[in-house]
């Protein structure tokens, strides 16, 4: 097991190095240096050239790449053009918000997706099956920023059931432990804060969950259809076990294998969705940071984000592969 992990890690660190070279070259090739971003319209050309020189943009490319690589290893992605603060700190500060939103979205996608997938499998071929699958596919077809905005206009503005913006009501004082507001609220006993955070989470999480929901429904349906046809399910039935036991221990525990893998991979895709959802709800996570960096062409910030996401994505893939052993004894023993 260890040998396999080390091999995978080595292979992927080489790939990441390649990615950093690719990213650096890519951004260097893009026209429009950062100095135009930092100075207001009326700054004179002289000031712009001075800033270019001061930012070390005129040094030979390889020294710049060397310096860039040196800083990356120390997790120093330079400072963001829009806020002037170190990108690493910005990303670290905003990570909890996106993690909390992604977990909430995944909770909804799994909580709804698996039962719906099971229902569609059980009622295979009927209108319920068609309705469930197409309904979940509809979720992915709605552009997520439009879905987020509509949810907000309908449920927050017109009906007023839920708050429209932020992660907490402005000015609420809370004790921060991990940065996950709901979790912090619970462990520190500030249940009003936790509840307030949950209310703020509902709409963005629903919008974001539209992407993974469809995938989970479809994978669950296919997986359950597969498992239900297996002999051991009939053996369980032949034992006269209670339906709940047959469904739980025999059908679902086997059906969960492919579903668990997908959930791991879907976490990665949530980040892309977060960019379009967080800005609509001013959620202040990494998503809105990237949205701002994109609209303001803050290249250093984007480079930092891409590297972090690449590492995050690669680590998740590795974890999913390793966790497969935990879930499926057949894999564990052989490796």
């Amino acid at each position, binding site marked *: 097991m260890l040998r396999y992990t080390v091999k995978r890690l080595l292979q992927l660190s080489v790939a990441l190095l390649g990615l950093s070279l690719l990213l650096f070259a890519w951004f260097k090739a893009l026209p429009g240096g950062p100095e135009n971003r930092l100075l207001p319209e009326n700054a004179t050309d002289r000031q712009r050239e001075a800033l270019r020189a001061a930012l070390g943009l005129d040094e030979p490319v390889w020294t710049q790449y060397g310096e860039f690589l040196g800083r990356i290893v120390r997790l120093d992605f330079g400072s963001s053009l829009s806020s002037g603060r170190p990108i690493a700190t910005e990303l670290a500060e905003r990570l909890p918000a996106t993690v909390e939103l992604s977990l909430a979205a995944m909770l909804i996608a799994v909580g709804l997706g698996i039962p719906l997938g099971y229902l569609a499998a059980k009622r295979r071929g009927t209108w319920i099956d068609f309705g469930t699958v197409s309904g979940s596919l509809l979720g992915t077809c709605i552009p997520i920023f439009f879905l987020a905005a509509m949810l907000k206009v309908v449920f927050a503005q017109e009906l007023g059931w839920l708050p429209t913006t932020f992660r907490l009501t402005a000015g609420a004082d809370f004790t921060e432990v991990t940065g996950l507001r709901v979790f912090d609220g619970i462990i520190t006993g500030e249940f009003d804060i936790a509840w307030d955070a949950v209310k703020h989470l509902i709409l963005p999480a629903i919008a974001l969950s539209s992407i993974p929901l469809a995938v989970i429904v479809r994978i669950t349906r296919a997986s359950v259809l597969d498992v239900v046809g297996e002999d051991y*399910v*009939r053996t369980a039935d*032949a*034992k006269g076990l209670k339906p709940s036991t047959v469904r739980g*221990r025999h059908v679902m525990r086997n059906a969960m294998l492919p579903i668990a893998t997908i959930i791991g991979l879907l976490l990665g895709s949530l980040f892309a969705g977060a960019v379009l959802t967080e800005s609509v709800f001013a959620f202040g996570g990494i998503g809105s940071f990237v949205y701002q960096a994109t609209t303001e062409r803050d290249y250093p910030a984007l480079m930092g984000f891409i590297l972090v996401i690449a590492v995050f994505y690669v680590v998740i893939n590795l974890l999913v592969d390793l966790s497969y052993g935990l*879930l499926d004894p057949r894999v564990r023993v052989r490796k």
Partner: protein
Amino acid sequence: MALLEVEDLRVAFGASTAVDGVSFSVPEGKVVGLVGESGCGKSVTSLAIMGLLPKGRGRKARQPVLAAASEPVGSGLKATAAAPQSIAASGGRSRGGADVNGRAVFDGTDLLSLAPAAMRRRRGKDLAMVFQDPLSSLNPVVPIGRQITEVLERHRGLKGDKASKEAANLLDRVGIPDPTRRLKEYPHQLSGGMRQRVLIAIAVACAPRLLIADEPTTALDVTIQAQILELLKDLVETEGTALLMITHDLGVVAGICDEVNVLYSGRVVESAPVRELFARPTHPYTIGLLGSIPRLDLPIHEPLTPIRGSIADVIRWHDGCAFAPRCDRVAAPCVEGEPALVGAVHAHRCVMAEEVA
């Protein structure tokens, strides 16, 4: 009254009928065989008795878990191959539901009319079943021990280490060495023969009064086959369990069965005590079956006489003898109406055959 009386059992999947009026009985402590080529309805019969067939469109499917209809088709090896050809060919998008009619009286109660919840309480307790393919009949992600204790828990209310101790005894009883260690292992860590023993242990966990074995040895190699049959015979003698043995292998029938029912195209065509059947086979189909087995007592160069045609060229029992198209002794009466089952101890369903006691 035998322990199990099956009367005029009929099973249809949409338009096609798999079992067309089967009747037989299984007395206490006896081994009764159901033998026939693949596709003659013997497995569907066993599943119908156990109530494991998914409800047809006619009746609301109350069973929570889909159990795939499994009538072995073509290659006999995998009992649970694709749904029977007849269903797929029927075209209509039937969800594989089966319409079951007739009676299966078990110790006075007709199992077929029981509500699913009631039937579920008896399955695994009063009557149990062993399946053909040990490789896929055990849950791959749950330890062996748990798959045994869950039956003990359900029907005998045993909990915790009392259940584990009993499970170890059962494994020992079916001849598995070092049972306590095996409890924690997973199915893929055991050989085919071992797994079949585990399945038998599961089946007999609550000392059922009737055990149904659907081709239990077909997926195993010969040496293991003999051990499994020995185990089953031993269980019947010591526990007094009635055993309904479903097989296409006449060697197995000779080795273990007390009485035999020969099935063809969904009906019993001959039923007799085993010795009687081998000595004086009456129905042409039985004769043909026996004719297709190499016999030690016959000279080596004696050619085997296989039955011509295949299971597909058949006519409906309603119009005459279903075996007529393949029968060497076919004559006019064979196709003039439904042939009846005649005879008491040694019965057969052939108008041409001579009377036999």
